[in-house]
């Protein structure tokens, strides 16, 4: 486990949030096991990101720059990463579980013939059968259980990390690291699947950056709460989101669905309204600083993971909250 390699994904030439979240965890693991952290950045222009990765603890950053690699190119990225891993021979490879990482990591693992664990929410080193092993924790059965996965023999051990669940570290400008330029070494054959363009449809990052999120479940919408949710969000300066059933019913866009198959968020304040609190939903916000649950059923499991709870008729409570918030302005 001496060397940990982090694939630091770029979007629009900038590091994704999850890349920095992984850096912190990689650094913690390296400290425990006496190893070091390296990172790899692939894109059109990666120098600034490389410096940022150094400030976040990377001792070496491998930079693969090429205008053809501005957008995600599945074949080319797979080839580059496999070659680098073959040369660096890290014990552990960590990648962000974005929709891109979730495509790239399994292909790389398959080509290397090694094990990969998806969407990890925690990484630890534990002694198992007398050996210190990397234990990868993943939510199983839609979050009803947590499963510990190990990869006893094959190296590197690979894992994708769920965005939004790990804490980001502080950059320290005094840190020093080596930046290594690597030739991409790709040609036409490496574009069997070619990404032609990226089309933007929404600003999803709003959800990750929100300090306050108000999330509606099926019960709330059933009570006619669509407009009410927006009103409450406005009064709080919050961003709206919803549970899987609310999303399936078309009340909330898929991009704002909270939970196991949707987004994981950890705002300062998360307010869940009219959702009973199935594990695959609550897993998406369980790490929020403060959680408020409002539901008609006082025995709903959502109250088990909340700091404050209000049980009662949503059609009365929500307008009262809006009124109270607006009165104070």
């Amino acid at each position, binding site marked *: 486990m001496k060397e940990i390699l982090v694939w630091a994904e770029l979007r629009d030439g900038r590091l994704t949030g999850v890349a920095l979240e992984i850096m912190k965890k990689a650094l913690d693991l390296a400290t425990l096991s006496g190893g070091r952290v390296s990172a790899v950045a692939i894109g059109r222009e990666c120098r600034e990101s490389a410096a940022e990765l150094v400030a976040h603890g990377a001792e070496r950053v491998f930079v693969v720059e090429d205008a053809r690699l501005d957008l995600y190119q599945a074949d080319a990225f797979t080839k580059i990463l496999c070659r680098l891993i073959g040369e660096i021979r890290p014990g552990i490879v960590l990648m962000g579980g974005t929709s891109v990482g979730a495509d790239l990591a399994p292909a790389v693992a398959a080509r290397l013939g090694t094990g990969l664990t998806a969407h990890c929410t925690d990484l630890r080193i534990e002694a198992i059968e007398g050996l210190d092993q990397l234990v990868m924790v993943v939510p199983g*059965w839609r979050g009803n259980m947590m*499963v510990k996965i190990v*990869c006893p023999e094959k190296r590197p051990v690979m894992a994708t990390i769920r965005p939004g669940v790990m804490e980001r570290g502080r950059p320290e400008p005094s840190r020093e690291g080596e930046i290594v330029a690597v030739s991409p070494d790709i040609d036409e054959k490496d574009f069997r699947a070619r990404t032609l363009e990226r089309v933007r449809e929404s600003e999803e990052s709003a959800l990750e950056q929100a300090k306050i999120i108000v999330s509606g479940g099926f019960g709330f919408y059933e009570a006619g709460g669509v407009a009410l949710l927006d009103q409450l969000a406005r009064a709080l300066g919050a961003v709206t989101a919803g549970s899987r059933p609310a999303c399936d019913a078309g009340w909330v866009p898929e991009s704002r669905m909270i939970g196991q198959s949707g987004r994981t968020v950890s705002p300062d304040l998360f307010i869940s309204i009219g959702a009973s609190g199935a594990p695959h939903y609550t897993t998406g916000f369980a790490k929020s600083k403060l959680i408020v649950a409002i539901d008609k059923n006082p025995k709903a499991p959502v109250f088990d993971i909340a700091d404050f709870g209000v049980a009662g008729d949503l059609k009365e409570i929500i307008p009262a909250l809006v009124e109270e918030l607006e009165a104070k302005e």
Partner: protein
Amino acid sequence: MPLNILVCIKQVPDPEQFDRITLDPATGSINRAGIPPVTNPVDRHAVEEALRIREASGGTVAVLTMGPPQARKCLEDALAMGADRGVLLCDMAFAGADTLATAAVLAAGIRSAGDFDLVLCGNESVDGATGQVPAQLAEALGWPRVTYARKIEIAKEAATALVEREIEEGFLRVEVRLPAVIAVVKRINRYRLPTIFGILEAGKKEIIEVGCAACECAGLVAEAMGLAGSPTRVAGVFQSHRKRHVEMIGGEPKEAARGLIRKLKEMDAL
């Protein structure tokens, strides 16, 4: 140009009943008894997409699954939707597989079942939920891949497909050479339900069984199958402890609202 399409599907415990899964704290084993098996939800959309491509450009649709004998049921359901034939990968040697070993066996099964221009999958299963198999299957076949597909257009000469691939904040337009593996998301289509006629017809369609020997003939060694071919292991299962100590705020709605806002201000959250 007609296309020969194969769709990989999976039988899973009904996800609506996952909360009935319990953990035996003594043995650490999962109890999922009594939960009925269903076809993995997004896989139906993959079958539907294959049928639509066949309707537009001709060709055939085969469906394939790896699983115990009772997984035949999800093949029958796909045949009733309109698929032409089924392939059941069934052998004790396949049991205990992680995604790498699963992909290896799927690829061998596909090779032994015929020549295909396109393999479709659901983007992920609800039980394992790793979403790793489609990309690993593409690697095992030596084909290119596109995952998270929400729209597929086959070019007239059937040499390429133009795919809209979902990504955070939008989508990527990807052109992929065939043969390829494409994994679809639910929003790609609305799938049809089997008709009575379809169900009757399904009974006449062929389901072939492929075991370990046929996979070996297709070039896969037994050591690469099942548990033996799986680099990862489950080291344990535990119940997630996320409990917080909730403070319930009671009273009339107005009172509760005021009480809650006061608490949040005290916590500096507003």
